[in-house]
């Protein structure tokens, strides 16, 4: 599929660039629009005549958003929840992935397949009893525990880590065993350090998806101060349905951490997770 440097090839390349740039414009416009609106003065926004550039940049929408919400608290809640879940997944999915990939024990494959088989199940099947369990039976509504614990080690991360671990040479584990290393020592001193590239990917994707998580926090939080930023933003949308300026300011604030993460760790996002396996 190489493109020859003849005239037809050049035209072809130009067309490709044109198509792609137009498409990029379409996907970026919503984000750009969000930013522009969030920086457009209150009165202008209220009259609903937005411009393509913030002619008179203003932070007023941010002030309005912060004034009418508990945004700092929401952001803090999201940070606590997403960080705790990320940490949990890094530790527990690497342990479990290692055991499923490299250790032999009775029931290993059966347990693994049972875990995997439920991944296709719609969320809604488990949602209601889980909700009743957490809210009514355990009385954990409106707590960090309810927001964090169910996601401390997801099946998909366990699966990814299993795939990743199975690419590591078993001889390292055997060498460590001969070197009188304990079983936990092998995990901590050998496996965990060399699995870092895979764990980085798990950490990043886990953080982003739980920073952005909406449905569960939406169900189990009831007080304003326990809301995560996504739930807070959604509640703001209904409370201040016409103030798009403030709404967009909130959207920008909610997106900033993950967008910053994306730009600083781009290569991890872009190497992606291939079908069934991490690309190491």
């Amino acid at each position: 599929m190489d493109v020859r440097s003849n005239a037809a090839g050049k035209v072809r390349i130009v067309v490709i660039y044109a198509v792609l740039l137009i498409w990029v414009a379409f996907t970026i416009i919503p984000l750009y629009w969000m930013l522009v609106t969030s920086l457009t003065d209150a009165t202008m926004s209220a009259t609903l005549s937005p411009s393509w550039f913030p002619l008179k940049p203003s932070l007023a929408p941010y002030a309005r958003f912060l004034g009418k919400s508990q945004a700092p608290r929401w952001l803090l809640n999201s940070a606590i929840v997403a960080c705790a879940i990320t940490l949990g997944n890094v530790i527990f999915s690497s342990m479990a992935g290692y055991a499923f990939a490299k250790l032999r024990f009775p029931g290993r494959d059966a347990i693994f397949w049972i875990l995997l088989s439920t991944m296709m199940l719609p969320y809604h099947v488990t949602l209601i009893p889980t909700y009743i369990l957490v809210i009514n039976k355990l009385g954990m509504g409106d707590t960090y525990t309810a927001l964090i614990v169910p996601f401390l080690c997801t099946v998909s991360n366990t699966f990814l880590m299993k795939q990743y671990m199975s690419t590591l040479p078993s001889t390292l584990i055997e060498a460590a065993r001969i070197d009188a290393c304990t079983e936990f020592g092998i995990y901590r001193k050998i496996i965990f350090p060399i699995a870092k590239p895979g764990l980085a990917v798990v950490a990043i994707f886990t953080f982003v998806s739980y920073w952005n998580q909406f449905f569960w926090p939406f169900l189990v939080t009831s007080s304003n101060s326990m809301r995560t930023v996504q739930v807070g933003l959604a509640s703001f949308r209904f409370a201040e349905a016409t103030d798009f300026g403030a709404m967009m300011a909130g959207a920008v604030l909610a997106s900033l951490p993950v967008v910053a993460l994306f730009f600083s760790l781009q290569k991890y996002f872009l190497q992606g997770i291939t079908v069934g396996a991490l690309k190491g």
Partner: protein
Amino acid sequence: MKREYTWCYIFIAMPVLLFLAFTLYPIVSAFIMSFQYYSVLESTWVGLDNYKYALTDPVFWRSMRVTLVYTVGTVPVNVLISLGLAYLVFQLRERARTFFKAALYLPAVTSGVTMSLVWLWILDPTPSGLLNQALGWFGIDNVIWLGSSKTALLSLMLMTYFGSHGPALILYLSAMGGIPKSLYEAADVDAASNWSKLRNITWPLLKPTTLYLLVTGVISSFQVFMNVYLMTQGGPNFATSTIAYLIYQNAFRYFDFGLASAMSFLLAVVIVAVSAIQFKYMSTDVEY
């Protein structure tokens, strides 16, 4: 010999315990619940009543139809868009490739909530809504995007077309990178046209990726909830009431947990069946 397994079970303890508490127990519990009239205060055994009610409820069928239209209208289109973008990006040099990958990926890291809010603003029914403005340049009249039962579902579908194709794009690109170059060279020797190469080499070898994207796409599309909740609340006139939104309403608005559970099992059956059909017709023996 027993002691040597201790650590193995400790290592897998967390996902297994979470599975027992938050997957297995809820499945069993939901299954039992689906045969009960279950509310927070009391529960009574009603046999198949919930299933019968769901299957004879026009609202349920309308939601199924909405979900189906949404799925058929989004998943294959988005897979094709990703494939097309990947095909174009793949022909570029490394640096240009990275740029487009990043630019097309970016929206994927922002949350569904933020994207819903932005699109709410873009689809604003007044003439100052971004999309209406743009259409105005072409002399097209104002459209009440989300407010009309004719265009509401279409609007939700439109959102996904211009959403991020980054993750799918990256999957396709890495699958394309995995196709041995020698295959194309052999095709060149056989004087194959570009179209023939795309049809006979690229497309068949990308089938596993396409299958994966279709299956996962359908599964998540059948469960679409957030956009509906934040943008249309299922309206107007149930035009965007997806099955997931209906289940949510039954469970958390009307607290009819039994009916909601029954519906979610019906949804599960549909998802498993559709996935199985996809595997049957799309799966291939191609390995490379």
